[in-house]
């Protein structure tokens, strides 16, 4: 199987990697870069646990090849916090207890981050629409939606 030399920026850091053709972006993130915040869930684009930003837009990293990320900017959940300070959106998740088992949380945060970037003042319906591709089996979503609304109201992601 062919391997490909790629250059990709992950959370601001440039990486040069040799990746096999069939390696997914998710595998590259978790297993090559040891960024295990991004989760492997359904592997079919249903659950959103693997959501990352590629060039600023959320995608399911289980359904994208690592080689397709050549030359692009990737942001994972590890890239949301600055130094040791959580982002306002992350703080809002903590404040609202929007986390139970936590498996969906990285994907939820990335989808919410992307939403607030394109729409700083979403209403409840817009928040729900943005999270259609992120399943949570614990919280019933209410606290997640409240947390995102709070982060938006307080003016930041």
């Amino acid at each position, binding site marked *: *199987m062919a391997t490909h030399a790629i250059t990709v920026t992950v959370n601001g850091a440039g990486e040069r990697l040799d990746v096999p053709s*069939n*390696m997914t972006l998710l595998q590259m993130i978790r*297993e090559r870069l040891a960024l295990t915040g991004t989760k*492997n869930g359904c592997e079919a684009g249903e659950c959103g646990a693997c959501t990352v930003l590629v060039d600023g837009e959320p995608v399911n990293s289980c359904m994208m*090849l690592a080689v397709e990320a050549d030359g692009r900017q990737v942001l994972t959940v590890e890239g949301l916090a600055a130094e040791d300070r959580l982002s306002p959106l992350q703080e809002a998740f903590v404040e609202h207890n929007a986390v139970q088992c936590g498996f969906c949380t990285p994907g939820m945060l990335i989808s919410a981050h992307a939403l607030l970037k394109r729409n700083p003042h979403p209403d409840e319906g817009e928040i729900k*629409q943005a999270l*259609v591709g992120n399943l949570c089996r614990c919280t019933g979503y209410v606290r997640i939606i409240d947390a995102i609304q709070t982060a938006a109201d307080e003016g930041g992601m």
Partner: protein
Amino acid sequence: MFARPGLPSFDYVRAGTYDEAVRLLEQWGEKARLLMGGTDLFPGLRDGAACPKVVVDVKHLPGMRDIRCDTQAGLAVGAAVTMNELAAHPDVQAHYPLLAEAANSVASYQVRNRATLGGNLCNASPCADTAPAVLVLDAEVVLYGPKGERAMPASRFFLGPGRTALQPGELMMAVRFPPPPVPAAARYLKLGRCKAGDLALVGVAVLGIGNGTGYHFRIGLGSVAPVPFRAAEAEQVLAANPPSEETFALAADKAMAASSPITDVRGTAEYQKMMVRNLTLRGLREVWERLRNP
């Protein structure tokens, strides 16, 4: 090497030209698969439905990501334009809102960032959300293959579940739409098991065109037959009778009669047929209302 079984082995090739893509398709035949957004390909690779030796990435070929709109010439959408790009494009929203609505109904925001119009059509799922809209907008698909470029009506493109008129070595370049009909109103009504994110149990696209001097309607149905199709008999009823509640009810019955869904995990055939009638009726009422009160 991987913590979980990953994708099967294949060689990834990013095609630099259309001819290179065609050459690879001819050389590898069934063992080659095209990659656009991958949202159908990846699940297929994982469940064994696809086991290619070569995956040919064609979304970077010239024109594949372009949207060109001209009210005289119509709309041309590159096959690799994503659902989110299509739904957010100002010209598509202004002149082809049905297409934007259909694109926006696909799966989730993340999936729509990768899923492409061409991939949705070439995968030829009966429930492809963009297909009913493409059919009622009288689009044609532009294909490229060993003999060069050719165009065909979208209505002749779908042959069966997963089967299209693509010949060996061919790929889709673009979808072309004629100038937008005016004045018009349209709606894509999608029924899933939940409000959003699911595949369609029934998809109904209704397009109404006209003003005080006359009206006509087109109806496209998805998920309720081996291929997405235009409800021709229903359209004839609408053409032969003045718009009224009775006409709409008769047309909705014809649409229901023309559909042949199968019972599956998403619902029974009987339920889907009844929903074809109900959604067709709802779509006609709404489109008619908007045509009369623009």
